[in-house]
């Protein structure tokens, strides 16, 4: 009798925005972004290799989320290896909440095995009249009524109200890299309206998992990447449900803007998206992974017996004493926040002023490439090792990693980096993430655009950590596990607007024919 295919998904599937290729913070899907990739790591949980494995997405527990069917085929999945799979889905009519998704895996000679996992879906909207974002989840809604940011100098010569859509108009309808951010958060006014109001000290966490602050990061990311998606899709194409608007920009400080060299191409959008994530997750850093201001505020303001908490406001101001936030670096953020609990009988306040430090850090990335590569002989292989701070490496499903490969004329191509023991990746889970691309396949694309194949190609590597919370964790424990932080990035943010954000290639390859 055939046994069930020993494949499992150990970590919650996460959202990847396909234009920028970035994971949305904590992997949360938001209906404001119409097209997202449902991405997950599928692990061979046995101690034997599996042959001829088919994997497909079977069903989603929300009629409003429409996936594209696709079956992944793996001739071999080594014992213990995790393969990355993803399905494009249209989320525009999705509803907020925890949604079930079922996947099937079947290896040759084995029965298929179904895995049912939850994904988290929020719904962000923008009220043009009230100038207010609302991020809805089943447990309530977070309203962001004010967002002040530090951004590229070119974008706010007026010093006030930066509206991406207006920028688009100023640029003649199609935004350039000049208005794609990044925007570093400076202040936010937020209010969480629990649904229903609750009695006691603590209300329900969103999705019974992340802190409320993650909803604030989601809103900020959406506001930041609206322009990127609009630029990529072109005017008049429905791709996102909100307009990106920040209320005020900091006139005295500006940050750099990315310059990947290929404005308007895949590299430009990816780098802009990465820069947005790096900038906006500073909110999550400032509001602490251990316990966020809502949880701490709740603990500090126990309401009277029988009182119903109706709204919890947090006004926060951020400052960056060590310079702009950057990926994988323990940068400090000075934060002042004021929590206010409004019940049906009283109002309670709690204020905090402190410094938080980014704990999603790495000890750098080591990229291995050939010094010279013969374009038509074999695929170009890129290997990357991401160092943890404890001397070990990130391995397998720890990271969502990819690279940009830039041609001598600065046209970029994206490459997945995987530690799955497939093709050119020698061993699964050994900390070496590998990508490969045959430059022969890119030759036609370059020729069409009159671009060179021969010359110096550059490699830029990026990685985000993957949320490792498990369903059996208590909500307040699961909340401390947050994913989607950039732990490695080739783009660096600075508060020097006179130069582009440094984009440091981690490797260069001399390509010959």
């Amino acid at each position: 009798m055939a046994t069930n295919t020993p494949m499992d998904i150990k970590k919650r599937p996460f959202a990847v925005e396909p234009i920028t290729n970035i994971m949305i913070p904590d992997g949360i899907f938001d209906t404001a972004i119409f097209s997202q990739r449902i991405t997950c790591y599928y692990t061979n949980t046995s101690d034997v290799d599996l042959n001829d494995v088919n994997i497909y997405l079977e069903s989603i527990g929300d009629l409003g989320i429409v996936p594209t069917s696709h079956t992944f085929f793996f001739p071999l999945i080594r014992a213990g290896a995790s393969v990355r799979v993803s399905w494009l889905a249209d989320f525009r009519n999705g509803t907020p909440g925890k949604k079930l998704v079922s996947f099937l895996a079947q290896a040759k000679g084995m029965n298929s095995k179904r895995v049912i996992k939850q994904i988290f879906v929020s719904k962000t909207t923008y009220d043009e009249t009230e100038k207010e974002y609302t991020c809805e989840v089943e447990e309530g809604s977070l309203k962001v009524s004010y967002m002040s940011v530090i951004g590229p100098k070119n974008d706010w010569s007026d010093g006030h109200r930066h509206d991406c859509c207006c920028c688009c108009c100023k640029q003649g309808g199609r935004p350039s890299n000049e208005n794609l951010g990044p925007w570093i958060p400076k202040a936010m006014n937020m209010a969480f309206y629990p649904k229903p109001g609750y009695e006691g000290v603590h209300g329900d966490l969103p999705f019974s998992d992340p802190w409320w602050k993650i909803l604030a990061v989601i809103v900020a990311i959406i506001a930041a990447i609206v322009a990127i998606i609009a630029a990529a899709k072109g005017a008049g194409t429905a791709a996102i449900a909100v307009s990106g608007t920040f209320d005020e920009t900091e006139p005295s400080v500006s940050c750099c803007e990315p310059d990947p060299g290929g404005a308007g191409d895949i590299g430009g959008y990816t780098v802009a998206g990465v820069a947005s994530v790096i900038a906006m997750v500073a909110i999550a850093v400032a509001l602490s992974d251990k316990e966020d201001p809502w949880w701490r505020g709740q603990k500090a303001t126990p309401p009277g017996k029988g009182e119903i908490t109706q709204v919890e406001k947090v006004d926060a101001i951020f400052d960056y004493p060590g310079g702009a936030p950057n990926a994988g670096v323990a940068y400090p953020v000075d934060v002042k926040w004021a929590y206010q609990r409004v019940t049906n009988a009283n109002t309670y306040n709690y204020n905090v002023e402190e410094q938080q430090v980014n704990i999603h850090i790495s000890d750098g990335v080591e990229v291995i490439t050939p010094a010279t590569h013969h374009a038509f002989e074999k695929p170009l292989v890129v290997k990357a090792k991401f160092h943890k701070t404890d001397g070990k490496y990130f391995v397998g499903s720890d990271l969502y990693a990819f690279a940009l490969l830039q041609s001598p004329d600065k046209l970029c191509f994206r490459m997945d980096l995987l530690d799955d023991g497939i093709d050119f990746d020698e061993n699964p889970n050994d900390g070496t993430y590998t990508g490969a691309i045959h430059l022969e396949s890119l030759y036609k694309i370059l020729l069409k655009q009159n671009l060179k194949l021969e010359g110096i190609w550059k490699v830029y590597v990026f990685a985000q950590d993957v949320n490792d919370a498990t369903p059996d964790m208590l909500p307040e424990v699961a909340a401390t596990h947050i994913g989607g932080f950039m732990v490695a990035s080739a783009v660096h943010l600075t508060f020097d607007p006179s130069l582009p954000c440094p984009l440091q290639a981690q490797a260069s390859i001399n390509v010959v024919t």
Partner: protein
Amino acid sequence: MSIELEIQDGSPHWWNSSDVWVVPGNDPSGSPGQPIAGQTAYLWGRVHNNGSTFANSAQVNFYWSNPATGVLRSNSTFIGASFVDLDPGETQEVLCLTPWMPTIVNDGHECIVAEVIHVADPLPSPLPDAFDPPAYLQIAQRNLSVLSMKTSMMILPIELAASPREKKSLEVMLEFGEEIDRKSIRQLGMGKIEYTKKPIVKAELTMDRGCGKINTKHCCCHLRVDLAPGTSQAVYLKVDPCNLKPGVYIPINVIAREGDKIVGGITFIVIRSEEE
């Protein structure tokens, strides 16, 4: 080289397919059972590839409709869809994760339909309004539910409908059915229960919703119903559990014919409620 997909019809009555079933509750992997009005349920289907070619990404659609004899697309509600891959000769169970909430007004006595669609094994285009499972291997219907009775009579409305541009002249008949296969009984979440041929209930089919007693003794009867295009009408099944005892069941079939063709049916498995 072909793909031939099938969701098998029921036997002896095609509307009682055991290739479509319901899992009530919040766990889609739970045990099959009877849908409970107002509570979440999940639908499953079983799809066979009788062809000689791998079927990639076949789509399985699930629908529900009010208790009815002939089920139409135009009076059914789409629940959700799933994908399935099938090797030649393979059978796969397919789960629809869109939660289904049986409506309170139907008390869980709802009809479900599953269809499998693949570009290499298509349904006709344009799609006919009637699902017509006997005509298409790709479509099956489950119109089988448990009627759990206490001591008083129950009256159940059954919908008869005509497609928007087609009149119908139906003969609707009531009959006491034969023993139901164990698989279908298990799928309804029923434990040990025995079939009986004895006249333990009275039943009547009427056009009148009135609460008058059933005068006929263990009878079968039939009605003639003419429907104008695009209209629907209810007939009422009255069931009196006069001698119904715990641990036994009797099926009641309501069958609709149009000329010589059986166009639909619905089966109620009548049992004695354990709650008194």
